C-alpha cells in the first residue's frame, strides 16, 4: 500500500485507525466533567482526608470493642426481639398477600377490561411502591403508638402494592384455555376466576409471597430503629449506650436468623411449587 492509499482509507473510515481527535476530546471532556463532579460533591459533603482518617480510627476502636461479642445480661429480651421481627414479617406478609389477591385480579387486563380503572389502579400501586417501609413505619408509630403493631401495618402496606402488581402480571400470563372452557360450560365469572385462573396462578402467588416473607424478615430487623418493634430497637438502644460487644452479638444473631429463614422458606417454596 502506498501512503496515498492509506490516507484515503483513513479518510474513509477514521475509526479503524484508532480514536479520532474528536473522540479523544470527548473522552477527555467526560473525564474532566466526572472529576469536577466528584471533587465538587466531596467538597460539598465536607469529606477531607483528616475526617476520613479520624472516622476510620473511630471505626477501628469500635471494632476492637466489638470483640468478643457478648450477649450482655438480657438474653431473653434479645430473643424476644428476634421472634418479634419474624412474627412481624410473617403477619405483615400474610395480610399483604391476602389483600393483594383481589387487587391483583382487579389490575389484570384479562379480568377487568375497563382500561381507565385499571390504569389508575396501577398508578396508585406505583405511588405506594415509591414510599419506603421505614417511612410507613414512622407514620404508623405516630398513628398507633410504639410497638410491633406499627411494624406489621408498615410491612403490610408497603407490600400490598408490589404484590398486587406481581399477582396481576401472573394472572395476565395465565393460560386462557381453562378459563374459556369454564366460561363455555356455563360458569359464571366468579367460577371462571376460581377454577379457571386461580389454580394456575396459586403456586406463583405463593412463591412470590414466600420471597416477600424472606425480604421482610430482613427489613423487619431494622423497623425497630424508628420504634416499630423487633430487634432493631435493641440494636439502636445498645448503640446509643455504646455497648459494642452486645451490638456485635445481636448483628451475628440477626444474620443467622435471616439465613435460617431463607433456608426454611426456600425449602417450603420448592415443595409447594414442585409438588404441582
Amino acid at each position, binding site marked *: 500500500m502506498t501512503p496515498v492509499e492509506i490516507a484515503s482509507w483513513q479518510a474513509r473510515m477514521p475509526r479503524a485507525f484508532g480514536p479520532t481527535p474528536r473522540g479523544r476530546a470527548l473522552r477527555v471532556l467526560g473525564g474532566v466533567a466526572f472529576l469536577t463532579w466528584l471533587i465538587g460533591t466531596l467538597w460539598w*459533603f465536607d469529606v477531607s482526608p483528616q475526617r476520613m482518617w479520624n472516622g476510620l480510627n473511630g471505626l477501628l476502636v469500635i471494632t476492637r470493642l466489638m470483640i468478643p461479642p457478648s450477649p450482655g445480661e438480657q438474653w431473653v429480651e434479645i430473643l424476644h426481639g428476634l421472634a418479634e421481627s419474624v412474627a412481624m414479617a410473617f*403477619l405483615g406478609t400474610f395480610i399483604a398477600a391476602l389483600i393483594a389477591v383481589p387487587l391483583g385480579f382487579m389490575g389484570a387486563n384479562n379480568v377487568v377490561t375497563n382500561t381507565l380503572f385499571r390504569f389508575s389502579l396501577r398508578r396508585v400501586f406505583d405511588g405506594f411502591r415509591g414510599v419506603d417501609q421505614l417511612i410507613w413505619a*414512622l407514620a404508623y408509630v405516630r398513628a398507633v403508638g410504639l410497638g410491633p403493631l406499627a411494624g406489621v401495618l408498615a410491612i403490610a402496606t408497603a407490600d400490598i402494592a408490589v404484590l398486587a402488581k406481581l399477582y396481576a402480571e401472573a394472572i395476565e400470563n395465565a393460560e386462557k384455555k381453562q378459563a374459556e372452557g369454564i366460561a363455555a360450560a356455563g360458569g359464571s365469572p366468579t367460577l371462571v376466576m376460581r377454577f379457571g385462573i386461580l389454580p394456575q396462578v396459586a403456586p406463583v402467588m405463593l412463591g412470590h409471597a414466600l420471597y416477600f416473607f424472606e425480604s421482610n424478615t430482613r427489613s423487619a430487623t431494622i423497623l425497630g430503629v424508628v420504634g416499630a418493634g423487633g430487634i432493631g430497637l435493641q440494636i439502636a438502644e445498645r448503640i446509643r449506650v455504646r455497648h459494642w460487644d452486645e451490638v456485635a452479638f445481636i448483628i451475628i444473631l440477626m444474620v443467622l436468623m435471616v439465613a435460617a429463614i431463607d433456608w426454611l422458606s426456600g425449602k417450603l417454596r420448592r415443595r409447594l411449587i414442585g409438588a404441582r
Partner: protein
Amino acid sequence: MNAVSAGVGRQDAAFRELRRQRRTTTVIGLTILAACLLLAARISEFYPSSLAAGVPRIGEYFARITPSLEWAKLFAGVDTEGSLAFWFYRLDAWALLLFETAQMAALATLLGAVVALLLAFPAAKNTGAPAWAYQLSRRFLEATRTVPEIVFALIFVWAFGVGALAGILAIALHSAGALGKLFADAMENVEMRPWDGVRASGGSWFEACRFALLPAALPDLLSYAMLRFEINLRSASVIGFVGAGGIGEELYKVISFNYYEEISAIILLVILSVMVIDLASERLRRRAIEAVA
C-alpha cells in the same frame, strides 16, 4: 365388559384415594398456617382490641396529613391557605435536600461499585484466584450484604459524626456486598477463551482480568450498577432517619413534630423524584449498554 368395569372401579378408587390424600395434606397445611399465624399475632401484639383502637387513629392521621387544598385558591401565593404554594412553602429547601440525597446515592453507588469490582475478580471462581483470596472476598461480600445499611449507618454516625458522609459510607458498604456478588456471578458466566488467550501469550493474572474478563462482563456490570443506583436512591431517602444526611432527616423531623401537611408534601416530592430518576436511569441504562456492547 366385566374387565372394563373392574378397571373403571380401580381407577375410581385410586382417584378417591388421591383426593383424600390431597385433602389431608391441605388440612394439615392450613392447621400449621393457622397455628403460626396465631403465634405470630401473639408475639407481635396484633390483638383485635389494639387493632380496633388503632384503625380509627390511622384514618385520622392520614386525614390530617392530606393537605386542605381549595380549588379556587389553588394557584394563589404562598400566603393563602389552601394553595399549592402554601402546601409546598419550603420547596427550595426541600429541592436542595433532594438533590443532596441524589448525590449521596450516586457517590455511594460509585464507591460501592469500585469496591465490588475489585473484590469480584478474586470472588469469581473461573479466575482461579488463590483459595484464601476467594474465601476472604466471598465472605466479606456476604457479610456486608446481609447487614442492613441502616445498621451500618447507626455505627458510622458514631465514627464519622452526624452527616451525609456516614450515610454515603453505609450505603456504599452495603451495595459493595450486593454488587460484588452480582459482579462475580456475571464474570463467571463469561466466555473463557479470551482469558486463555491472554494467559497463553504471557499475560499476567491482572492483565487477563483487565483485557479478557472486564470487556466481556462490562455491559452486565454497568446495568447492575445503575439498577443499584435506583435502589440506593430509595435507601438514601430514609437513611437520614438515623442522622446520616439527606431528605430523611427533614422527613424524620416533620413526622416527629407532627407538621402534618409537610409530611405529605415531602413524601410526594420523594415519590416524584424517585419515579423521574427511575425513568431517566432506565433510558440511560439502555443507551449505555448499547454503547458498550
